[in-house]
């Protein structure tokens, strides 16, 4: 018994040495700051429009590959999907499955008047089972979108893992008519699911889907919203979504800007100067590899001069690593004078 325990410990140690853990995050988040326009002197203060650039680049010395997916396709099978839209959906699902990797997890939930989990979460390598499930999709009945979201989220939650990116892809061509259906209500559900690590992307089919609802769900769910005008177009947008998921590098990126003494900032979109604060927090959302995000703001101050070398803005980005599920942080200090600015504060 004693020898066995020692042997087990030795084996564990050897494995730990031989298989070092993957780097926590091999992609690099970079923050940059630049001026958008020349310095402006207002009545009582001075203002400079600035822009924080956020980019996610592939780090040197290793590529972690796309995050592993825990994906749920939520398919509207109401009566309006009968015929070409459903056929197009089946073709698109097969194309998406072919695009996924064998160790990704996928499930399919359909909703009409009722909800059916036609494919519980399985590894993509079980292609025959997935094909059979896709074949069972039939259209008819109403549109219980809320219940479909609830069931899809439940399936994702049951098989969620911190090292997998849980995401729900909703495909619908109509307006929800059973259960809560306002964009505000479903947006709140989407926000809540987002907090639980479940993102949502939406695909509207044809020209009768609820565009407002689909946009809101994607916005609050940290995903993307697509429109497929024809059934034949569903495959390309669903493949675009899978590619976007593969490129996901940071989730729920939140940017906090801390300003120096006697300095305030306000978002460009803010309605009044009253929103100016010594600190700003901006929810940026999901970052994708190779795609830069920008946040514009106005720097305001009532003093005429900065001390050279002083802190202008402290930018802190917090996000969730899709490969590990852990919260991570990136911090950059920007000092006066900014490169590229000539004229002084």
């Amino acid at each position, binding site marked *: 018994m004693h020898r066995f325990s020692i042997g087990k410990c030795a084996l564990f140690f050897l494995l730990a040495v031989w298989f070092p853990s993957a780097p926590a995050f091999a992609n690099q988040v970079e923050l940059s700051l630049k001026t958008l326009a020349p310095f402006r002197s207002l009545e009582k203060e001075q203002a400079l429009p600035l822009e924080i650039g956020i980019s996610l680049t592939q780090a040197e010395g290793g590529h972690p590959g796309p995050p592993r997916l825990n994906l749920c396709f939520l398919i509207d099978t109401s009566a309006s999907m009968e015929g070409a839209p459903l056929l197009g959906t089946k073709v698109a699902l097969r194309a998406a499955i072919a695009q996924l990797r064998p160790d990704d997890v996928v499930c399919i939930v359909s909703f009409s*008047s009722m909800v059916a989990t036609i494919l519980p979460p399985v590894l993509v390598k079980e292609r025959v089972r997935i094909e059979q499930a896709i074949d069972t999709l039939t259209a008819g009945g109403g549109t219980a979108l809320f219940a479909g979201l609830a069931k899809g989220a439940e399936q994702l939650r049951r098989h969620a893992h911190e090292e997998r990116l849980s995401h729900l892809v909703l495909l619908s061509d109509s307006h929800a008519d059973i259960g809560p259906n306002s964009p505000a209500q479903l947006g709140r*559900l989407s926000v809540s699911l987002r907090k639980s690590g479940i993102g949502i992307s939406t695909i509207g089919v044809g020209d009768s889907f609820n565009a407002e609802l689909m946009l809101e769900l994607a916005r609050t769910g940290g995903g993307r919203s697509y429109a497929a005008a024809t059934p034949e177009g569903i495959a390309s947008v669903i493949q675009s979504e899978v590619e976007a998921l593969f490129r996901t590098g940071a989730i729920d990126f939140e940017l906090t800007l801390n300003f120096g003494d006697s300095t305030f900032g306000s978002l460009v979109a803010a309605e009044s100067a009253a929103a100016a604060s010594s600190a700003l927090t901006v929810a940026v959302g999901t970052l994708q590899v190779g795609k830069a995000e920008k946040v514009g703001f106005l720097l305001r101050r009532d003093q005429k001069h900065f001390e050279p070398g002083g802190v202008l803005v402290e930018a802190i980005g917090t996000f969730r690593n899709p490969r590990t599920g852990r919260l991570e942080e990136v911090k950059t200090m920007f000092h006066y004078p900014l490169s590229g600015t000539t004229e002084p504060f």
Partner: protein
Amino acid sequence: MKPRLWFSFSLLVVLPIAALCFLGVELAQDEATVLRTQYRNLFLEHLRTYKRGIEELVRTRESELDALLRGMPTEPETLHALTRENGYIEAIFVLDEQGRLVYPDLKVGAAGEEERRFLERTANIWSKRDIWFRLQGADGQTEFDSKAAGWYKYYWGNEIRTLYFRPAGALLFGVEFNRIRFLADVIGQLPDQLTSDTVVDGGVVVLQDDNRDVIYQWGPATLSPHLQPTVAVPLLNPPLYGWRLLYYAPPNVLERPISDSVLFSVVPGVAFLILTLVLLAVYFYREQNRELREASQRVNFVNQVSHELKTPLTNIRMYAELLEDELADTDDRAERYVGIIVSESQRLSRLIANILSFARHQREQLSVRKAPAVVDDVVRQTLDQFAPSLAAAGVSPQLDLSAGATVRVDADALGQMLGNLLSNVEKYAAGRPVDLMTRQAGGVTTLTVRDHGPGIPKAARAKVFEPFHRLSNALSDGVTGT
């Protein structure tokens, strides 16, 4: 078939069968009612199981919130992180003992847009200290009660929003609970169309909100808008105020067990009893037919015997009467003996005639053969035949005959009937006179025979015309009653 037989058949077979069918249907209906009740209870129990699951989910969320808020620091960063990361918390406010807002801090403008909107829509709650009053209780005590956590409902637009409030130390936390997310969790926990259990049995289970709108449904059937729920279970506890779980059984589900029960329990029993009754009826019918046949054979035998007796008896009577004429005025003693032979042979002839008439009647061959005759002559001839026996019995006939006209009448039948009456007089009214009166008027001839015997009781008068009926069965009474 004769009416009496029909009546007997109805009484013995049809009525019991009808009663059995009626009782069988009643039994089936009772059993169906019991089955319906059992099915309803079964469905009700399943709905209650779902309800218990939902209540357990509520308790889990409450426990999670309690654990989060217990000892929760009030630093804005911590509370902000809580609302940012917890899917069930949309916003938080914190009040101190005096009911002042501790978080979010509006004074320095630190609150975000979401927090501002939250404070605006809940201003009537936290600024007027509604929650405090609830916590203080009826006695107005200002001490915090650590167990006074609970739910608070308010409307925002048409939507119900819920706050979960909990005292912690000297502070009160008010958490806006994401009810929509909770509803999604509830739906996630319930079965779906493909995982629904067999008890649904073709029906539909529906989760209905406080506006009676369908939120979620599952089951293999399609919900008809006109269908009434079979059973319903309310979900009154927060945060699902006024929601209901309903079960809609398809119309044939509650009927199918009834027909099965009738088929497998009631129908065999009733059918067995009906078969038994029919067999009994057939048995008794055959038995009755056999007895009737045997009786008919006996009557035929007596008839044949009577026929065989009639011819020699006629010869005996004829030669006895010739001998009586020969002996007249020669030998009184021999004449008396011969008179007795004549009288007894006449009696025997009447008996045989009666038996033959009855036999013809039984064979439905009895007919009236009318021929011209004088009724008074028939009466006198009959009376002459009975003269010796009436005289021996001390009966003195009193004649009042006025039917001398010739009429068409069956003289033999009339004589036989009068003979029967006189025979009864001889036996039951001995020693008394008998009145015979005939009248003719308006084409109707009337013969009245009245004795002075004990008479016939009123209740028995209708039966004296039935064959073999006797008012008394005493052996000493007459023996030839018809």
